[in-house]
């Protein structure tokens, strides 16, 4: 029994978490660049963070037989100052050469502002220019529906194929539109603000098992790095076939992520 957690912020987790994830069948994680819980004060702060994502975390994961991949960007919460955001974006291309980098992410919107939208569009252009996959963060709570639509419109205006974009943190009111427009959809299993394993299973039953995955988005807040194996148990408890469980927690992430030549699993 193997699974991939395609969205988890391991920089915020302990080495014990890697161990428990490995014991639960995790063979690979992908880690998008995000907000650290506080605003970084300089471009150098991001430079060091990208080094952590591309040099240090892959080594820590490897101790437990877990492959570690990352996504780079400036997150929407720190993108409200376009001047500063552009200085950060300027250092990203060099890091795209690193062997564990899959693309640009998690870009998106937080408060659905024009400033955030400008930087989102510039990072979509960066992904287009460097032929990178895209991982998208959608806003939380009351801002999600509006933000998801604005993001999909911005992506549709680019030349990036929707099949190379994963829109994350979908819920019942956004998943249908995301899939209808040809994007991949990610469900985040988060204790308070996103979906439970029960609802994630309901969504698969209602919206199908194509172009969809689930992740823990484990980070420094209340979150659960074992959320994906727990969702696998929930699907099994309800009587779903093992092949379907494996499809949404292993085969689907493998299919999407393998569009990047850097995504390789150990045989």
């Amino acid at each position, binding site marked *: 029994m193997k699974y991939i957690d395609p969205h988890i912020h391991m920089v915020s987790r302990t080495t014990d978490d890697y161990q428990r994830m490995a014991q639960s069948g995790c063979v690979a994680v992908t880690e998008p660049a995000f907000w650290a819980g506080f605003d970084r004060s300089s471009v150098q702060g991001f430079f060091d963070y990208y080094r952590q994502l591309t040099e240090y975390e892959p080594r820590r994961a490897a101790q437990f037989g877990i492959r570690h991949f990352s996504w780079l960007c400036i997150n929407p919460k720190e993108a409200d100052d376009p001047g500063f955001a552009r200085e950060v974006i300027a250092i990203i291309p060099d890091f795209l050469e690193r062997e564990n980098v899959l693309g640009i992410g998690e870009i998106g919107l937080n408060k659905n502002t*024009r400033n955030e939208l400008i930087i989102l569009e510039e990072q979509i252009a960066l992904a287009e220019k460097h032929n990178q996959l895209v991982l998208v963060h959608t806003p939380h709570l009351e801002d999600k529906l509006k933000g998801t639509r604005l993001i999909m419109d911005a992506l549709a205006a680019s030349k990036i194929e929707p099949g190379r974009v994963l829109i994350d943190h979908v819920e019942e009111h956004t998943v249908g539109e995301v899939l209808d427009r040809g994007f991949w959809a990610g469900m985040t299993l988060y204790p308070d603000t996103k979906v439970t394993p029960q609802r994630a299973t309901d969504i698969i039953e209602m919206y199908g098992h194509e172009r969809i995955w689930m992740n823990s988005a484990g980070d420094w807040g209340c979150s659960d790095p074992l959320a994906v194996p727990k969702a696998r148990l929930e699907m099994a408890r309800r009587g779903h076939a093992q092949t379907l469980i494996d499809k949404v927690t292993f085969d689907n992430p493998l299919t999407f992520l393998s569009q990047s030549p850097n995504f390789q699993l150990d045989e």
Partner: protein
Amino acid sequence: MPQDIVNTCPQTREGVINTYFLEHRAKLLDIAAYLDRVDRGRGDDPQDFRDRAFREALKILSSDVPHRARRILELFSDMSHEIPQSAEGMKGAAGAVPLATEDRS
């Protein structure tokens, strides 16, 4: 009924109830106790938009129309089209918005 809600769960209706009744009975009691707690709170009715949205959502819960989860999320969503320039000075997400005047049920 929309196609995507008919016979999509592998369990029978009785099976769903057997599996989940106790779990969701507990969640229902949590909601009841929360409403009691608001009533027991000191001070006047704060006329809070979140509270009004919550009580509106309860009507969706007790309706027989499918897609209750989606409809509650839509009730709690910002449906405006304005795009502010900056997030400067904005509060964090509240989880609900003031109710629109139209009937959403």
